[in-house]
């Protein structure tokens, strides 16, 4: 089958504004969703579901969050993990203190709390930019994780600061199997990814990109700097907050501030750099890349007859990440998502040059 749009004429702006204006893309997306929702839970092992796919999906969600703030609105942040931590602890406290709330409501409220904290730490962005803003978000990273461990109330005074996440109930059933947790994660991530895609292709997304690309011009056409920037912080932190809650409840099964340290923030930043700054698709590609690379390296090592020593493997990982990040920053700032798009453009014309 050819990847071609010949003969697909758009009859109106509605068709042209659709998420996937090209039929083949629509079909591909349908197939992808069918595989993710139906085939994967049937065929994937417990290990793949619980240790690879669930963290991949949750990190994709966090990467979407950071991408909204950094990729679309142009505000560099090194505090994504801290907002995940806020979400995790908030969800825990909602579950603990308001047990009648359904789990999904806990997750959404956790996102709302993270959004409020995000707005607070976004306030400096009205005065400072770039490097200095990054340093301010770094302060948020340390302050928030410190606060969550320092004050016992957040962790219900547990001695270690590490708490077991409550049992996961949905519609009266407890979700214990990896496949049920995977399906819940997948549903939440799919819905929020769609909402994010819609935002970035609407007025609010254009306003974010406008302040990213040329803030004076943005103001001159009537975009309010204060509101637009803070909304980017709020929405971004909401996404990170929900991701943090999912991480604690559906992946780790524990609520622990250590899971959301600076390394995690950097990991998410690398995901959007490799996957594509300013791209929802790129958030998934970047997360997949970073989650899958260690596994891939092990497989490659296996081909050479030896299993890689754990230390060597992680050194390799760090080196490859470093090289790739430098490559993408210099050569292709729009990451894997852009490479994918170029491939599609080529395919559209193939086999005719130009």
């Amino acid at each position, binding site marked *: 089958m050819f990847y071609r749009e010949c003969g697909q004429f758009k009859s109106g*702006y509605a068709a042209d504004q659709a998420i996937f204006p090209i039929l083949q893309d629509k079909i591909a997306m349908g197939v992808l969703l069918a595989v993710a929702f139906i085939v994967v839970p049937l065929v994937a092992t417990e290990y793949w579901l619980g240790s690879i796919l669930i963290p991949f999906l949750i990190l994709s969600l966090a990467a979407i969050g950071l991408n909204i703030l950094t990729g679309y609105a142009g505000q560099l942040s090194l505090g994504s993990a801290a907002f995940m931590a806020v979400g995790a602890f908030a969800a825990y406290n909602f579950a603990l203190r308001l047990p009648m709330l359904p789990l999904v409501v806990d997750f959404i409220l956790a996102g709302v709390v993270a959004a409020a904290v995000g707005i607070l730490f976004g306030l400096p962005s009205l005065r400072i930019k770039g490097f200095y803003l990054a340093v301010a978000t770094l302060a948020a990273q340390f302050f928030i994780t410190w606060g969550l461990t320092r004050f016992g109330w957040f962790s219900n005074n547990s001695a270690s600061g590490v708490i077991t996440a409550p049992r996961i109930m949905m519609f009266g059933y407890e979700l214990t199997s990896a496949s049920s947790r995977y399906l819940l994660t997948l549903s939440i991530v799919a819905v929020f990814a769609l909402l994010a895609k819609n935002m970035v292709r609407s007025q609010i997304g254009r306003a974010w*990109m406008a302040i*990213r690309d040329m803030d004076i*011009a943005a103001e*001159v056409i*009537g*975009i309010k*700097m204060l509101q637009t920037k803070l*909304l980017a912080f709020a929405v971004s932190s909401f996404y990170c907050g929900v991701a943090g809650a999912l991480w604690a409840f559906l992946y780790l099964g524990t609520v622990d501030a250590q899971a959301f340290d600076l390394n995690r923030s950097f990991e998410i930043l690398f995901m959007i750099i490799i996957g594509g700054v300013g791209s929802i698709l790129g958030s998934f590609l970047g997360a997949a890349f970073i989650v899958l690379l260690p596994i891939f390296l092990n497989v490659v090592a296996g081909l050479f007859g030896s299993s890689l020593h754990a230390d060597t493997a992680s050194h390799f990982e760090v080196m490859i990440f470093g090289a790739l990040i430098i490559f993408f920053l210099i050569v292709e700032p729009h990451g894997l998502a852009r490479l994918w798009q170029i491939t599609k453009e080529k395919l559209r014309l193939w086999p005719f040059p130009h």
Partner: protein
Amino acid sequence: MAITGRRVGETLLKVENITMRFGGVKALTDISLEVKQHEILAIIGPNGAGKSSMLNVINGVYHPQEGKITYKGEVRSKMQAHQAAAQGIARTFQNIALFKGMSVLDNIMTGRNLKMKTNFLQQAFYWGAALREELEHRAKVEEIIDFLRIESIRKTPVGRLPYGLQKRVELGRALAAEPELLLLDEPMAGMNVEEKEDMCRFILDVNDEFGTTIVLIEHDMGVVMDISDRVVVLDYGRKIGDGTPSEVRGNEEVIKAYLGTSH
């Protein structure tokens, strides 16, 4: 030669005794001028005369230390740029200030942001009112795209366009706001003759069809004489001339300061 007096109306904007300093540099000294409804006013003057600063003062990017601005009969003090936009003032920049990462279509759509009423939650669902609004404004933007004859590049990222087209897109973005007062900072700088002719045509058409009042800065005296109803001349931050193109051309001081030195 434009016909003066016929369509020109009441005073739209009145600037009185504006002084604007940057540290020790006085960019504008005691400037007063008026802009009448529906007219095309050109501001001319040598480099560094304070022309761009004047536009920046009018649309709230700069805040002058002294002076008074009255827009549509309302005196305004410290107005922010986005408030000026809300009052119907749009502009383009001397150095193109497009949103480089966005397509032509998205740049012009962004120009309509003040006309969009749905909030981000509605937009997240891309449904009902949000979808309707997006499509309505898309149709409006397509009219502008047709008007400026840039149909073939609507999906192109503006960063990839040649300079002349970028200027045209920037005009489109300003027009998208359906402004009452349009400020153009050197809209024809760096263009070849044909591009200049096109741009002149667009400016005259905008003025004619939509009745938009236009203040433009331009170095090309031929263009200024052709399209403007009135000309204000600045030199070293002072106003040294104000009148019809032919009056200004005859003004001794202007000849000495500006026309004498060829640009």
